């Protein structure tokens, strides 16, 4: 089920919200979790019950392994924090074996459904949606238990809820177990949380329906015409794809984070305006944060991080980025995309970052944007060959102007408006404005300090909410008539 679909907006979501409201009133965490679990099961089973059952089985295996790992240690986990992250306790060999078994189980499922076809072309099997996301989530649980960051979950339904929680199940963000463990055990939603959550959710829908989809149409048109594109068309296409992938994925994260908040969860942010980064290192601190931190904590640091010498650091970086690329898709173009980013990070560590620091900020941003946009060509193209042809259209042939009606007919008033809005949304202008409005709305420290701005701030906040509501209503209407509504990250 897709968030921006009629069945979700008009059927699943209202029923879930009403059910959860009733559960919230009961005050029982068991009831709340039960409602969320049932709804999440229905949500995932909508794409096939067999996949939902597979997920249940996989979580059961991880549940048992987690208990066994915890049982084989001398339980130092009460009050454990990240300081004990790499501490090894108890029977180290047994625990390592259990962790290895868990990794093999989870990666095995992922490999079977996602990657086996790459190595055995005759093998075809439908991939459960969101498999990469939930596999990494459940693995984070095993790692956290192994490292003693959290105690093993005693309740199977609670562990299942952690993995199956529908807001983040199929397109992230990759929620780490230790981030939601407490909330699964007890949480409460108040009117402010619901307000903030719904506004965030609506913002996501608005971004997705109006901006990401519109940019996606142009990107698809351009990439569908390789290699006959003019230079202008190729750059227009990659600009739109650059905007689409960010708006699409961050919109889904907005929806997930917003819905999570409605249900009392606080998911961490997944994006922080990546296109304003001045270096590729900074880009990766702002892009798909939940994935990059996952790899940092569970792959890069265990490999030794940057503590084992320069060469080893570069090797570790390349390994992490090759895996990052491979995580995105079972195609060599994704691996190349990962290697490309890894190479830039190594170059920046080798001295490029120092040079970049000395040059004016606008040039730094242009460098980063160009590098990122060029990388997206590998990400979006159907094959490495297509990517090379596309890059040729961008950089080698110098034919300017529009030559394809498929592209020209998309250059409408609507598209130009959405393009400008997409560019504005990709930088923190709106966040700053909304932040100021919300800041004006914050209660004053004492009554005497209640400046006249508070009242005007409250009025502005209400007006901002009304604008969001109005746009949300329009987005829902748009959604009903739109035949083009893909979610890029669903296929991961």
């Amino acid at each position: 089920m897709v968030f921006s679909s009629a069945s979700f907006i008009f059927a699943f979501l209202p029923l879930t919200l009403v059910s959860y409201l009733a559960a919230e009133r009961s005050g029982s965490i068991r009831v709340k979790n039960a409602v969320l679990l049932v709804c999440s099961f229905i949500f995932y089973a909508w794409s096939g019950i067999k996949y939902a059952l597979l997920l249940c089985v996989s979580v059961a295996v991880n549940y048992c392994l987690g208990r066994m790992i915890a049982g084989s240690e001398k339980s130092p986990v009460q009050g454990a924090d990240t300081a004990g992250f790499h501490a090894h306790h108890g029977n180290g060999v047994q625990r390592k074996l259990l962790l290895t078994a868990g990794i093999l189980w989870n990666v095995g499922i992922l490999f079977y459904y996602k990657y086996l076809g790459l190595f055995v072309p005759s093998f075809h099997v439908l991939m459960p949606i969101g498999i990469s996301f939930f596999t990494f989530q459940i693995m984070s649980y095993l790692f956290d238990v192994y490292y003693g960051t959290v105690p093993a979950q005693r309740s199977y339904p609670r562990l299942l809820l952690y993995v199956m929680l529908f807001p983040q199940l199929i397109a992230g963000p990759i929620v780490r177990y230790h981030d939601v463990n407490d909330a699964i055990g007890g949480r409460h939603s108040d009117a402010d949380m619901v307000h903030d959550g719904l506004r965030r959710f609506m913002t996501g829908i608005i971004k997705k329906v109006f901006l990401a989809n519109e940019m996606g149409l142009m990107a698809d048109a351009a990439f569908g015409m390789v290699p006959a594109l003019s230079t202008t068309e190729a750059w227009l296409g990659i600009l739109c794809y650059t905007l689409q992938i960010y708006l699409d994925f961050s919109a889904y994260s907005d929806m997930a984070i917003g819905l999570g908040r409605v249900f009392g969860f606080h998911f961490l942010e997944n994006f922080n305006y990546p296109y304003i980064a001045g270096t590729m290192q900074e880009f990766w601190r702002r892009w798909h944060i939940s994935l990059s931190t996952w790899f940092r904590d569970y792959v890069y640091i265990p490999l030794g991080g940057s503590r084992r010498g320069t060469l080893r650091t570069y090797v570790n970086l390349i390994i992490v980025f090759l895996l990052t690329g491979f995580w995105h898709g079972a195609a060599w173009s994704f691996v190349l995309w990962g290697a490309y980013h890894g190479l830039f990070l190594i170059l920046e560590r080798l001295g490029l970052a120092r040079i970049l620091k000395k040059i004016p900020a606008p040039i730094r941003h242009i460098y980063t944007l160009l590098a990122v946009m060029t990388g997206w060509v590998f990400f979006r193209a159907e094959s490495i060959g297509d990517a090379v042809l596309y890059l040729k259209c961008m950089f080698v042939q110098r034919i300017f102007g529009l030559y394809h009606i498929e592209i020209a007919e998309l250059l409408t008033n609507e598209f130009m408006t959405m393009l400008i809005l997409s560019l504005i949304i990709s930088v923190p202008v709106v966040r700053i404005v909304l932040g100021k409005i919300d800041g004006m709305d914050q209660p004053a420290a004492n009554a005497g300090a209640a400046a006249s701005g508070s009242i005007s701030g409250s009025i502005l906040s209400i007006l901002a909410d009304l604008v969001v509501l109005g746009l949300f209503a329009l987005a829902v209407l748009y959604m009903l008539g739109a035949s083009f509504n893909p979610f890029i990250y669903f296929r991961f």
Partner: protein
Amino acid sequence: MNACRGYAILVSVMRTKRSYILILGFAAVLAMPLFFACANRLLGRSDELHGVGYSAQTKEISAEGILDGSVQSSWDDWISEHIPARATLLKLRNQGIFSVFNESPNAGVLLCPDGQLIEREYVYKYEKIYPPAAEEYVRDECDKIAVIRDRLRAEGKELYIFITPTKPRYYEGSIPEQIRKMQAFPDRPGNYEVLTRVLGDYDFEVFDSVDHIRSLTEGGDEVMQFPMYQQTGTHWTWTLGLKTALAFADFMDERSAWSFPQGQMIIGSTDTPVFPDADLYDILNIYTRPWGNYFNADIVINEIEAQDAAEDQTGVDSRPDMLVRGGSFLGQTISPLINHGYFRRSMYLENTKVYSDNWPDGGTFSEYEELEPALSEQLKETDILILEINEAHVPTMSFGFIDYLYDHPGVFD
């Protein structure tokens, strides 16, 4: 001090209210379909959608289908198609696009800056953005038509070719420059030019309505008195269609073994567009009223003359039977002649629809074999066969009908 405290309380109350306003507003958006469905029912109104729509088929429930999700997927489609007040919601959406961006909400229709609506497909074909027909293909089809015409002649039957233009021919100036300069085949002659050049090498009876319109417009507006095309339509106006129909009847009368009565046209203005004068407007599915000065028209025939044409000296019905293979242009044009009794019996194949005594309300078909044996029976009885060739469809002349007749010579026996 009290004023400040009161102020702080007011701010706090507003914050709380703000949350509830948003939550209620969110609920209201989710309830939009129900709201509009109730409002429509209370007001006794309903909205309809026009144009080609996709109709989702719900998959038969099966354990395998539920396990792999295909059943749920079909339910998804069904839900989105059966939302209460869906037509109202979609029209609101389309109206928003139309009003805010001044654009057509239907991807297949181009809204020109001057308000002219034109089908994109016809624009692309006329402007040679899509490849025009190859002369070899047209010549090959004409060779087949010649064979068919000879077979008909052998049976004492007649064949006419009726050429129809598309709207961009007359409103090219309305089309945005950015589209016009996208010509991919500027050096090749257009469909109409290829067709007329090849037809010049054959001795078919050709009614070229492009020539006919040229003769009408040469006299200026006072001669025309009505628009060729409405801004809101893709076909020529109902009035021009009638005028052309009468001209075609005269054309046949001069060349045919059968006689056709002379008709007169009466014209009046109307607020409500007559079909097909707003057919493109209809598929925009918006609330804005159609724009244009609309006319209604009808044919008046001298009854004595009609009687003379319809009966021979012995009082037997002497009107010809007719079969037409065409599209919507000729459908719009020939139907008044059929309705005014110019033919004894008729069968009209319009795109994928068939109208005849057997299918008075219009049956549908995809293969000509599906129409058998009625098609062969009608062909045996037919005295006049008319083939429409629309300039946009020269690359698919007569939609395979020429090939069907050529490959099935038995249908004339």
